[in-house]
C-alpha cells in the first residue's frame, strides 16, 4: 500500500520525536492528534504484523470473525480445507460489505447486493447472469476477495498489509519466550473463553499499549482499592520488585511483577503448574514460577495480562489471562477487544473461575478496567489540548539500569519492575515506523 507524503515540517517533527526517545523524552500531543493518527494508519498499521484472531475463535471449517487492520475490515475464516484465510470484507463487484455479522459460519459468502458468491477462502465462484450479462468478458479468477497475508504463532493469527514485512517469527524477535506464559498454559495451549468483550472507549490506543507493556508503577495508586480490599496479592512496600523485559528494536515489552515469598506458580491449579513445569523450557519455568503479574504488549496494539485475582477479598487469588486488542478508530478513540484466555486442558471449574476473575478485574465493567479507563480518558483529553502541543513527558526511569546478568530470558531485562525502559523501546520502535525506518 502506497504511503501518502506528508509535509516536510511534519517529517522534521517526527524525526525530532524519534531523537528524543533515547534521551527519555516523548511528546504529550501524540496521544491525541489527528495528523499523528493519519500517519499511524499508513506507516504503522499498514506495515506491522497486526493481531487478527485467536485460532480457537474459528475452530471449525466455515467459522469466521471480522476484524480490522487500520480502517480495513477483514474476514478471517477457516476454509473447508482447514486453512485460515484473511480477506478484505469488500465485494469485488461494487464494494458491498460481504459479512455484516462479526462472527458466523459459512462455506460460501453471498453478496446481498447483486449476489456474487465467494468461497470463504475468498475465490469468486458464482456470478448471477454470467452468460447473459458478461458475455465471457469476466474471468472469475481475477475477481476474488483481496487477500491479506497471515501467519500464526501458538494460536495467534496475525496479518500484515505489507508484502515486504519480515516473517512473523523475526518480527516477534524472541518475545515468544514471554508470550508462551499466556499461550502455552499446558500442553494443548490456551483457548478463548467465549467471544471478546468489545466496546468503544475515549482513549488513545497508545496509552493502553504503553500501560500494558509493563506499567507496574500505576498499580498501587490507580488500583489501590484492589490492593486495600484484598483482591490483589501485592503490597505497596514490595510492589516495585520484578523485571522489565523488552526486545530492543522490536518494540515488544513485558513487565514481570514479583512478590517476595510468593509460592512458585501461585494461583494456578496444582495439575496445571505441574504441566507447565513439564511443557515449558527450564528457563521459562525459572522466570514464570516467580512471576506474580505478567503484563506485556506485542507492538503495536496487542496486549496480555496474567495475575492472580481474589474472587472473594482476602482469599487465595485465581490466575486469569486477558488478551486485548486496541483498535484505533480516531485520535484518542479506541475500539477495545478483550478476551479471557484459559488453558485448553484445564477443568471446566477452573475455566469458569478464571473467567470470573477476569470479568471482575478486566472485562468492560471490571474494577481494574474502570480504574484504568478513568485515567486514560483524561490523559487523552489533556493530550488534545492546545497547550499540550509543546509539552513533553519524562521517560527517564531506569535510564541507567544495567541488564540483570542472572536473568535467563531473552531481550533487554532490567530491575526493578517499576521502569520506563520498556516504554522507551516501544516509542523508539513506533518512531522508527513513523519515520519510515520499519
Amino acid at each position: 500500500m502506497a504511503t501518502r507524503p506528508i509535509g516536510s515540517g511534519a517529517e522534521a517533527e517526527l524525526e525530532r520525536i524519534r531523537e528524543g526517545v533515547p534521551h527519555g523524552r516523548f511528546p504529550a500531543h501524540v496521544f491525541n492528534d489527528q495528523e499523528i493518527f493519519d500517519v499511524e494508519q499508513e506507516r504503522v498499521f499498514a506495515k506491522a504484523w497486526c493481531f487478527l484472531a485467536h485460532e480457537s475463535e474459528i475452530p471449525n471449517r466455515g467459522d469466521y470473525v471480522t476484524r480490522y487492520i487500520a480502517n480495513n475490515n477483514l474476514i478471517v475464516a477457516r476454509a473447508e480445507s482447514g486453512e485460515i484465510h484473511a480477506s478484505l470484507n469488500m465485494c469485488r463487484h461494487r464494494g458491498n460489505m460481504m459479512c455484516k455479522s462479526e462472527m458466523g459460519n459459512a462455506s460460501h459468502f453471498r453478496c446481498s447486493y447483486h449476489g456474487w458468491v465467494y468461497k470463504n477462502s475468498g475465490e469468486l465462484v458464482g456470478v448471477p447472469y454470467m452468460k447473459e450479462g458478461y458475455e465471457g468478458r469476466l474471468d472469475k479468477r481475477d475477481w476474488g476477495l483481496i487477500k491479506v497475508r497471515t501467519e500464526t504463532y501458538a494460536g495467534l493469527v496475525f496479518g500484515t498489509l505489507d508484502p515486504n514485512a519480515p516473517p512473523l517469527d523475526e518480527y516477534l524477535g524472541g518475545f515468544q519466550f514471554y508470550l508462551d506464559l499466556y499461550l502455552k498454559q499446558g500442553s494443548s495451549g490456551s483457548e478463548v473463553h467465549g467471544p471478546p468483550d468489545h466496546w468503544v472507549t475515549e482513549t488513545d490506543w497508545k496509552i493502553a499499549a504503553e500501560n500494558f507493556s509493563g506499567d507496574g508503577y500505576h498499580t498501587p495508586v490507580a488500583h489501590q482499592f484492589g490492593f486495600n480490599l484484598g483482591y490483589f496479592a501485592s503490597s505497596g512496600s514490595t510492589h516495585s520488585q520484578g523485571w522489565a523485559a523488552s526486545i530492543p528494536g522490536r518494540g515488544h515489552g513485558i513487565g514481570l511483577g514479583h512478590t517476595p515469598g510468593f509460592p512458585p506458580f501461585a494461583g494456578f491449579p496444582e495439575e496445571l503448574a505441574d504441566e507447565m513445569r513439564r511443557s515449558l523450557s527450564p528457563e521459562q519455568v525459572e522466570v514464570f514460577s516467580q512471576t506474580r503479574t505478567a503484563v506485556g504488549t506485542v507492538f503495536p496494539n496487542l496486549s496480555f495480562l496474567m495475575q492472580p485475582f481474589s474472587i472473594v477479598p482476602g482469599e487465595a487469588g485465581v490466575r486469569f489471562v486477558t488478551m486485548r486488542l486496541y483498535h484505533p478508530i480516531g485520535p484518542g478513540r479506541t475500539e477495545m477487544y478483550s478476551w479471557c484466555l484459559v488453558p485448553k486442558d484445564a477443568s471446566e471449574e477452573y475455566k469458569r473461575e478464571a473467567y470470573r476473575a477476569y470479568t471482575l478485574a478486566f472485562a468492560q465493567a471490571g474494577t481494574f478496567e474502570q480504574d484504568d479507563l478513568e485515567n486514560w480518558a483524561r490523559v487523552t483529553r489533556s493530550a488534545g489540548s492546545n497547550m499540550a502541543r509543546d509539552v513533553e513527558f519524562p521517560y527517564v526511569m531506569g535510564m541507567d539500569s544495567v541488564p540483570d546478568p542472572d536473568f535467563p530470558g531473552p531481550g533487554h531485562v532490567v530491575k526493578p519492575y517499576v521502569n520506563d525502559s520498556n516504554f522507551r523501546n516501544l516509542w523508539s520502535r513506533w518512531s522508527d515506523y513513523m519515520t519510515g525506518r520499519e
Partner: protein
Amino acid sequence: MSEAVPTPQAENPDDGEVLHYPRDGGNEGPIVIANEFVDVVVRKVETRNGMRLEIYSPRRNACVRFDAVALDCLSYQEPEFITSLLARNPGP
C-alpha cells in the same frame, strides 16, 4: 458445467406453508439452518412408503426432497462439489 439457470424441478409449497412452519420442531424438524446469507428449513417428510428429507428455502420458495440414497451420496461429496453447484447457479 453450464452457466444456465436450471428451473427447479422440485415441488414448491404454497405460500401459507412458507410462513407457518413451527419454529421448534425438535429433532424431527422442521429445523431452521441459517447464517447471515440465507436461511433454509429442513424436515422429515413421510411418504406413503418411506421417508425423505425436505430442504426448503423460504426466500427462494424452492424445495427439494432427498431420499436416503441421495443423502448418502451427498455425504461423501467434496466441498468443491457445492462450490461448483454455486458456480452454476448463484442467481435468484
